């Protein structure tokens, strides 16, 4: 259960209202359950709302970003390429928990390369994946207005 608080500004028009910090917490492997796929659908729709969006990947959720996914054998749609497209929708912060990687024998090199073009910095290509430790992730979560856990 996740709680976030943000005092309401009565009468503020949508355009005047400040952006909220949204964090999507991905905790499940990409296949086996539908959580990862349906969370991605929320992220894509949410991108149209012009909020400050971050993604967190922890527990088995780190497998969502694994490179070389091949779903032919299980008859499921391989949606792993969609993560790479999120940068074009302004979703550029993918926080990956180091402890979760380590516990699963993974390193950052086992994840696909995801980058975005930073329009505030001459469209320089920058990495979207940001490894953080558990304490840093905890702090990040506490700074959010809305935490959506799937």
């Amino acid at each position, binding site marked *: *259960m*996740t*709680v*976030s*608080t*943000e*005092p*309401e500004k009565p009468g503020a028009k949508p355009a005047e*209202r400040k952006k*909220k910090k*949204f964090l999507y917490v991905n905790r499940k492997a990409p296949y086996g359950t*539908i*959580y990862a796929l*349906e969370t991605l*659908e*929320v992220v894509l*729709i*949410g991108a*149209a*709302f012009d*909020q400050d969006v971050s993604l967190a990947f922890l527990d088995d959720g780190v497998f969502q970003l694994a490179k070389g996914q091949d779903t032919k054998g299980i008859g499921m749609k391989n949606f792993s390429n969609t993560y790479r497209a999120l940068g074009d929708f302004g979703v550029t912060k993918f926080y990956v928990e180091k402890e979760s990687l380590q516990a699963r024998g993974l390193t950052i090199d086992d994840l696909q390369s995801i980058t975005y073009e930073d329009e505030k910095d001459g469209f320089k290509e920058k990495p979207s994946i940001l490894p953080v430790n558990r304490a840093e992730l905890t702090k990040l979560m506490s700074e959010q*207005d*809305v*935490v*959506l*856990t*799937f």
Partner: protein
Amino acid sequence: MKFGILVNEGPYTHQASDTAYRFAKAVLEKGHSIYRVFFYHDGVNNGSRLTVPPQDDRNVQKNWTELAGTHNLDLVVCIAAAQRRGMLDEGEAKRHGKGEGSANLAPGFRISGLGQLIEMGIESDSLIVFGD
């Protein structure tokens, strides 16, 4: 305080919906308001009028319908999640040629898009997630 409630699991297999219902009742009793309750993933199945639980058990769908009726709650079922799980209102049943009487969305619920979830996050003072 204005709450948004997200229910990510279906009835009976998981306790999430029961807990969300009890939470909703509690905040209303304390004088707070609920901006919306959004049902996603298997949570959409909470809105099926076709569930028939044993008589000595609680009726999860009916609980929500009655609470919505009493407090004028906005219960929204995600359309994409609902369609792939066979949850249809009259309009969707007709649109997909599923035959007359096949709509199974219970009274008090409505079907809409994921934008309603994001909007709930923006508009609520606090968004609470109930899931696995």
